[in-house]
C-alpha cells in the first residue's frame, strides 16, 4: 500500500486537481469562473505529462558529459563513441509537448477572454442562466 502510494502520489494529487477543474467548469454559473476551471484542468493535464516523464537517478534532458569529460567537448566525445546512456536523462518528449501546450494555452485563453468581453458588451452579463434568458 505504501509502495503504491509512493509510486503514484503525484498522479493521485493531480487527478484531484483535475476533478477540481472539472467541478469549476460544471457547477459555476459565471463564465469567467468556468474559464478559470478550464485553466486548472489544463494545468492538471500538463503536470500529469511532466510527472510521467521523470526517471530515478536521471537528470534534466541536457547533455552535459560526465566525470572527466564534462562540458561541450566531453559531450562531443561521448556522442562520437556512442556512450550516451538513455537512463541518465529523463524523457524529453513530454517536456517538449507541454512546452508548446503552455504557450498555446495562454493564447487560447486570450481568445476565450475576448469572446467573453464581446458577450458582455452584447448582453451586459456573464451569468449563464441570465444569459440564456436574454438570448431568447
Amino acid at each position, binding site marked *: 500500500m505504501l*509502495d*503504491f502510494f*509512493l*509510486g*503514484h*502520489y*503525484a*498522479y*493521485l494529487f493531480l*487527478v*484531484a486537481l*483535475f*476533478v477540481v477543474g*472539472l*467541478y469549476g467548469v*460544471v*457547477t459555476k454559473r459565471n463564465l469567467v469562473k468556468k474559464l478559470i476551471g478550464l485553466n486548472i484542468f489544463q494545468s492538471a493535464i500538463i503536470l500529469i505529462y511532466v*510527472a*510521467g516523464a*521523470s*526517471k*530515478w*537517478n*536521471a537528470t534534466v*534532458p*541536457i*547533455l*552535459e558529459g560526465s566525470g572527466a569529460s564534462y562540458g*561541450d567537448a566531453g*559531450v*562531443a566525445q*561521448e*556522442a*562520437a563513441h*556512442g556512450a*550516451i546512456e*538513455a*537512463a541518465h*536523462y529523463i*524523457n*524529453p*518528449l513530454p*517536456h*517538449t509537448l507541454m*512546452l*508548446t501546450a503552455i*504557450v*498555446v494555452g495562454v*493564447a*487560447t485563453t*486570450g*481568445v476565450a477572454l*475576448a*469572446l467573453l*468581453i*464581446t458577450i458582455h*458588451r452584447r448582453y451586459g452579463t456573464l451569468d449563464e442562466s441570465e444569459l440564456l434568458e436574454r438570448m431568447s
Partner: protein
Amino acid sequence: MKRFVLLVLIAFGALMFYGVSTLPDRADPRAPANLEESAAGSPVAQDYYIRHAYEDAHTPNMVTVILADYRAYDTLGETMVIFAAGLACFLILRRRRQEDLEEWEESEGLEESEESKEDGTRS
C-alpha cells in the same frame, strides 16, 4: 441537481483514480515508456532522441532539438495556432467604425451603451 453533479464528479474522480492506479510507478526506469525497445520490438522514441540528438543537430539541449528539428512540423503548427489566436483576438475586439456601430445598434434595437456615448463625445 447540485448533489447529483457532485456525485457524478466523485464517480468520475474515482474512475480516474482507478485509471491512474494501473499506470507503472512514477519515475520507474523499467516502465514501458523508459525502455529501449517496446514490447513489440520497435525502438522507443525517447531512447532514440537521447542517443542521437547531439550527432544529428550538434545541440546539447534535447528539448530544443526535438522541438525545432525532429518535430519541426508540429512546432510550425503551434506557431500557426498562436498567430491565429492573436488574429482572432484582433478581429473579435477591434472597434467597429462609429456608423457601423450605430447602424448595428439600431438594427438590434439596443439602447446606446455607455461606451458608444463616450465615443460620440470624443470624436
